[in-house]
């Protein structure tokens, strides 16, 4: 077996080991992923891109930065570990393999896990933001700059609310945090993957809302039902989402009503990401969600 990535791994990481190194090429995702096995155990993954090399390079830089930022904190253990970015004609991002079930699959295994998983994820997010509090700012100018990234033209009232209200801050954020990127076991979060969209100055509430929306679509599907059951209904899931939003607001001293007022910001960010990915279904879904957030703002978490 002489695949160039295998040769690199052998040469740089497993030089002293004569054991057999093999791989599975996993192809059902947005990127091409090699899973490397040493002695029948997965030990590393290599991520390659079909066409967006810069995203891969960015992800590597982000992972290095995150490990620097979290050095000495417990949360560092949950951030996936980059082994290197190598050039084999194209960039190859090598990372340590993390055990665990993707969050979207974990929470689909029953009500108990559907409650547990978003709770674990929100705790992780609060911890993430709290560990980086020295990087926070609520400068109006900075906020306007960020808002303009996701919204062209005159800023609507929900962006103005976010800009004016000092309890909303700018912070390092994952950028496109979804429940699938949490690798979970019954005893907790094993790791978090995919930091390609990490940014030093982002909107943390958008990550929180993204977590809840992605949890909802994992349970109900990418459809109107997911929106209704999560935000415009009274059921166990919407109660859980409401509780988690309140928990976040309490921790960061944000007025809950104000928080509900900025929900469409998440949709703008999600539409902007989906547009870049040319994902028509996601654009459609997030546009529908945005419309609901704006038109039925007063009915959020009420039975319609």
């Amino acid at each position, binding site marked *: 077996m002489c695949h160039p990535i295998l040769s690199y791994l052998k040469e740089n990481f497993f030089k002293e080991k004569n054991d057999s190194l093999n791989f599975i*090429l*996993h192809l059902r995702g947005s990127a091409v992923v090699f899973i490397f096995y040493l002695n029948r155990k997965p030990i590393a993954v290599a991520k390659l891109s079909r066409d967006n090399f810069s995203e891969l390079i960015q992800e590597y830089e982000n992972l290095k930065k995150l490990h620097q930022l979290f050095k000495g904190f417990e949360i560092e253990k949950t951030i996936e570990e980059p082994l290197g970015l190598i050039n084999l004609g194209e960039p190859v991002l090598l990372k340590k393999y993390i055990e665990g*079930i993707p969050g979207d699959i974990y929470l689909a295994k029953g009500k108990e896990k559907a409650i547990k998983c978003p709770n674990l994820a929100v705790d992780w997010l609060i911890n993430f933001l709290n560990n980086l509090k020295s990087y926070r700012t609520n400068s109006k100018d900075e906020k306007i700059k960020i808002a303009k990234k996701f919204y062209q033209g005159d800023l609507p009232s929900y962006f103005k609310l976010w800009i004016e209200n000092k309890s909303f801050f700018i912070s390092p954020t994952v950028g496109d945090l979804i429940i699938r990127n949490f690798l979970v076991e019954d005893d907790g979060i094993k790791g978090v993957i995919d930091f390609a969209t990490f940014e030093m100055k982002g909107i943390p509430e958008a990550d929180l809302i993204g977590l809840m929306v992605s949890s909802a679509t994992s349970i109900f599907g990418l459809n109107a039902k997911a929106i209704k059951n999560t935000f415009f209904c009274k059921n166990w899931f919407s109660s859980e989402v409401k509780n988690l939003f309140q928990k976040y607001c309490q921790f960061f001293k944000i007025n809950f009503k104000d928080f509900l007022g900025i929900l469409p910001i998440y949709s703008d960010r999600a539409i902007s990401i989906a547009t870049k990915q040319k994902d028509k279904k996601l654009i459609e879904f997030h546009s529908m969600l945005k419309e609901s957030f704006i038109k039925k703002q007063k009915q959020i978490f009420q039975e319609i």
Partner: protein
Amino acid sequence: MEEFLKIFCCPACQGKVEAKNNQIKCLNCKKIFSFDEDGVLEIAKKNSFFGKDQEKMNELIKAIRKMSSFEELEKNILKLEKTSPDFSFKYCLDPRRADWTFLGDFFGKIVVDLGAGYGSISIPLARKAKLVIAIDSCLERIKFLSQIARLKNLKNVISIFGDAIKLPFRENSIDRFLMVGLLEYFGKNQEKLLLYLYKFLKPGGEIWIGIENKLSPIYFLGRRYHDEELPFEPFLPEFLTHLLHKIIWRRPPTIKLRTKKGYFELLKKAGFRDIQFFYSFPDYKNPAFIASTDKEGIIFDYLHRKKRTGGDFKVKLIAKGVKILDKMNLAGIFAPTFFIKAKK
């Protein structure tokens, strides 16, 4: 084009050629080969149309000819899919169909894609290769491919309407031959074809084959490779298959599938070395995963983890079957399809 002319020779007499005004002229036998309006170099004489509706396919090409960018095509995909029964984004343009090429090294190489079809492999590969020469004996498909290369502004793709048994190359000039879904159609002549291709490869050059396994579990369930095949045909003795084909379709069978051992021996006989198998599940056209070995239990491990990550009942059942086979070290022997790499 300059790179292409270095390896091109007259397909009729192997003589030296010169290029002039969209034509290639043999300096020896004086034959002229022209690039048509779609940029296809026409070498073959007989068109083997392979599809559902030739007329609609030509209308599709006509429509694409008028487009000026790939984005324009992307905007019209749904409309084109509706009007052209042979066209689907997933089959013709999805770059994921070329994902298996991540198994090998194609950077800076001269690659010949035999039976290139709509270009689902040639087009994405052009990003890595020095030169991709796509060859197909279906004129409509190769015209489509050529138009896509134009829309994507790929200057290193040469489209040839030609035949795999009459190649216009100098000996020892090609780095990689690709044959995905093609070798099986050469029936009894598979060895002859491989021997023929061998001489065009540079020393150390590679042939990559994507092909079905004769022992794929689907054949045990009576599934046929295509319409002109009998259920359970891969397991019938050759003489009986021949006889039945003659009686039913009045011609000999066109498809020949082999086992892993069978392909290994075929390639070895044709002079290839370092023959390596990759096990592609559930097929080679749109693989979900490809394993580098069938010996280490990694297929079992991968599927075991995947089991925890969902999938419908059918997927779960198939995965269970593969896991059982892998436990017995048989997942490779009974893998549905292979990618095979062999060196000159």
